[in-house]
């Protein structure tokens, strides 16, 4: 179907969406780049003009940047680890034949349908609140002092919330892959003498490699930009203990009113994301080659 005619038609039909997407992306990017080299603080409108690289210098040398950078990595890697390992485990369980399979599967998937703000508020108020949360009630019942999760373990709490939201996604993708595993291949392995553990490591896990790669790539894109969960729970604090780079940019722009500095932060975040993406694709992307 690749005649001259169809190719021309395809290009003509694609043009509007390509143009719109291009403008959509290029305008904000150029504006961000422009502001990042300007002195532009809403509290000090008189001081404007070219700032050179000073915005970048201040953003990168600020101790909060290092902390946010480490937090971003810890958050992303921890959530990836929890969701991938937990997802494999849940998918293996869901693959068993049980009564009410359909309902169980829907229940497992459901957290993914809850918007981040709502999920974070539910965790903050219903579960983690040191006075009336369920965790606190459980702790008192068992004779322990209730833990103020969001104050004492802010980053860990955020990791829990975000992992809870992304676990269904990982489970779903891995479960689908698991179901496509040929039954005869498992039987062949069992004839070859592979027990449950060997079957998992030699047959099932390699079969899941591609699905796991997809989960890691997609989740990383979203996990580098976690924001709503932080905003409604800890507000990045105490101090900068639960601030990631996305939240730091917000902090700079809308709490410190430093548009120039925030733009520089945005550019830095884009560059960091690309570096991460580069290594990620190098490490796990090779699984995607068919």
């Amino acid at each position, binding site marked *: 179907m690749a005649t001259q005619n169809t190719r021309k038609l395809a290009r003509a039909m694609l043009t509007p969406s390509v143009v719109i997407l291009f403008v959509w992306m290029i305008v904000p990017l150029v504006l961000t780049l422009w502001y990042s080299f300007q002195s532009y603080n809403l509290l000090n409108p008189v001081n404007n003009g070219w700032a050179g690289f000073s915005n970048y210098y201040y953003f990168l040398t600020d101790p909060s940047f290092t902390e946010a950078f480490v937090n971003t990595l810890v958050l992303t890697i921890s959530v990836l680890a929890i969701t991938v390992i937990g997802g494999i485990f849940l998918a293996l369980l869901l693959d068993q034949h049980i009564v009410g399979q359909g309902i169980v599967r829907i229940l497992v998937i459901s957290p993914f349908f809850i918007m981040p703000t709502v999920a974070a508020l539910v965790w903050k108020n219903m579960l983690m609140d040191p006075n009336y949360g369920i965790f606190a009630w459980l702790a008192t019942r068992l004779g322990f002092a209730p833990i103020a999760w969001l104050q004492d373990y802010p980053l860990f709490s955020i990791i829990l919330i975000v992992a809870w939201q992304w676990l269904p996604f990982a489970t779903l993708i891995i479960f689908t892959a698991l179901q496509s595993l*040929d039954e*005869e*291949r498992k*039987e*062949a*392995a*069992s*004839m*070859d*003498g*592979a027990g449950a553990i*060997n079957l998992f490591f*030699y*047959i099932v896990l*390699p*079969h899941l*490699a591609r699905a796991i790669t997809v989960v890691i790539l997609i989740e990383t894109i979203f996990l580098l930009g976690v924001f709503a969960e932080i905003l409604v729970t800890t507000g990045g604090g105490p101090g900068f203990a639960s601030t990631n780079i996305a939240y730091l940019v917000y902090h700079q722009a809308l709490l410190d009113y430093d548009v120039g500095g925030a733009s520089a932060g945005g550019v830095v975040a884009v560059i960091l994301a690309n570096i991460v993406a580069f290594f990620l694709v190098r490490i796990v992307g090779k699984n995607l080659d068919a």
Partner: protein
Amino acid sequence: MGKIVLEGVEKTFGAIKVIQNVNLTVDDGSFVVFVGPSGCGKSTLLRLIAGLEDVTAGKILIDGVDVVNTPPAKRGLSMVFQSYALYPHMSVRSNIGFGLKMAGRPKAEIDRKVEAAAATLNLTPYLDRRPRALSGGQRQRVAIGRAIVREPKAFLFDEPLSNLDAALRVQMRIEIARLQDTLGTTAIYVTHDQVEAMTMADKIVVLSAGRIEQVGSPLELYNKPDNLFVAGFIGSPKMNFIPGAAAGDPGAATIGIRPEHIAASRDSGTWSGTVTVAEHVGSDTFLYINAGPLGDLTVRSVGEMGVKPGDRIFMTPEPGRIHRFDPAGHAIVAAH
């Protein structure tokens, strides 16, 4: 050693009896083929022997030991699957050696055995390839290599050739038969293709609806079918069945005569009819004939025979090649 004995084996799925009271002895070193139409239970029976399904009742003895409660890997059998079931992420070498690796054999021994198996199957140049880089026939050979390298008591083949094209199927059929002969290992082979069954087997087991219809050597089944089912299933084209009364034999409910045992002639014969279709395949001519009260008959005539649809034709059955069946469909053994 690999003598397999089935005693009263039964298998039910829910309320459906898939295998009904099967008694069978597979002698050591023999090549036994299970053949039957789709859904007759032949694959299920093989999977019961392999241990991939649990028997509902009965015993499976391998070299005199009941293995009904033994897991598949401990039965000392190896299986070649219809889909080959190769491990796509492993090289050919690892695929063939996987069973030995799982058995915890030393690496040197695995390498030696894998290379020996690969040499037997002409797979040596492909040892480091992945299965997806192989052709259908090569994949099939890897699956066979995986089976032989474990030196099992018996090979189980589950329709191994059905995914190959016709030419390759004939070639692999010969290779498998030759390999089994060289190794002298017992083999049980499941197929729905009676040509495969006839050409490969020492002993054929014809199954229908979960029951054994007849067990015997290929020529026994061809010459002395026990019943209408076996008579109709073995042989190609199918045996002609004629109501006994119409054929002038009131002692039998049905008589059967194979297409190759009817002589066709333009001039004279016992029966007559009109040609409806004539298939000329060169070496043979197959005539489909409407023979009035006898029904539709198929006749094989050797060589080229210039008949056209609509031609009148005479037929003479070869004496001594007529099979007689009683109303229940069983062969009437006594000669008349």
